[in-house]
């Protein structure tokens, strides 16, 4: 797994995102489309693709895609 693979999966899963617009430093909370529903989409994606469970507490600490990636690496 690398971070580019995670970014591609996120871009594929979240309709509102245009391909090639996300970077490791993208702050997912500052994006217009961010909602609690997107949080569930991301949790489901990470669970199915990486078999890693992102808790509500984890999610509060995640700001950027790099943070999310680091969490997946730490928990896998």
């Amino acid at each position, binding site marked *: 797994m690398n971070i580019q693979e995670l970014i591609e999966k996120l871009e594929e899963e979240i309709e509102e995102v245009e391909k090639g617009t996300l970077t490791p430093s993208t702050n997912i909370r500052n994006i217009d489309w961010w909602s609690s529903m997107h949080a569930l989409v991301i*949790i*489901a994606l990470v669970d199915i693709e990486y078999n890693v469970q992102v808790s*509500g507490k984890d999610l509060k600490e995640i700001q950027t895609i790099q943070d999310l990636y680091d969490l997946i690496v730490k928990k896998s």
Partner: protein
Amino acid sequence: MGFIDVEGIQIKGVSTVVPKQVVYNKNYELLTLSEREMLIKTTGIKQRRVANKSTTTSDLAIEAANHLFDKIDWIRTEIDLLVFVTQSRDYYLPSTAVISQHKLGLSTSCIAFDIGLGCSGYVYGLSIIASMLKSGNLKKAILLAGDVSTISCNYNDKSAYPLFGDAGSATFIEKTNKKNKWSFDLNSDGSGEDAIKITDGGTRNLPSEDSFILKQFEGGIQRNGFNLALNGIDIFNFSVTTVPKSIKNFLTIKATDIDSIDYFVMHQANLIMNETIRKKLKLEPEKVPYSLAEYGNTSSASIPLTMALVESLKTNTVKLLLSGFGVGLSWGNALLENDAIPHLLINDYSHD
């Protein structure tokens, strides 16, 4: 481990009654238009049935049972057992099952009691009935299951309000000489009591003036002490981790290949959660029916309501995998071999 195995128990009919009033999530004014679209896409819930304030779960479930009495040649006084699964009972006391015994015209020798479970309740109810039929000198039983959850959800709580619908169900269950097998796997984890909760109105927090005060929560959410509070992410993580793991374990212990299952009928929580569970179990979409789009999360009525949408159950002998999971936390799985169930009914409530 909470496993139960019985032989020769059969479901004879499944009937659900829903309120007439339809509420559409596309009209939910607390969300922007694009948020509403996202909500519908993610939860899979387009619309829900909402009960009038004067309609109780037992009104719906009793009518559901009466529809089955019209179709199946069961004599009311022959019913040995009535179990009512609900978390929206008519009164603090007496038990809603006992009131329903009288309203349905069942014999006073009928065993009747309530079970206070939600999303897992249908599986629990089936297991209790199957066990009692098998061990006692009993032959015919009725399982009533459902909730009017919408009365507990605050319109200003976007984390709960758009998810729930109301429904009451009745399932007729009989002991036979057949060799078909039913197995159950039942579980509980009270450490998750706060994941879905109505805090006030029980004896821990007696109803008080404070219970009625609207409180503010993160994300502009407002609710009072009598409203249902739902921690979506905790419930999501529990459902997509613990539930598939327990199902896989259950199937291994029962030496059952997942491909031998004809239908997997899950509690209808929300689409993204249920689909995550389905994908983890590697089940084809054709085997996993949904009632979410039209009815939302109908608590313990969601499994019988969804079963009624599977036409082939009316004509085929099947092996079903059922799974109910949620409030408690409580979860249960069932493997049921059952003959064709000709009477699978969904009707609108006649008094709306």
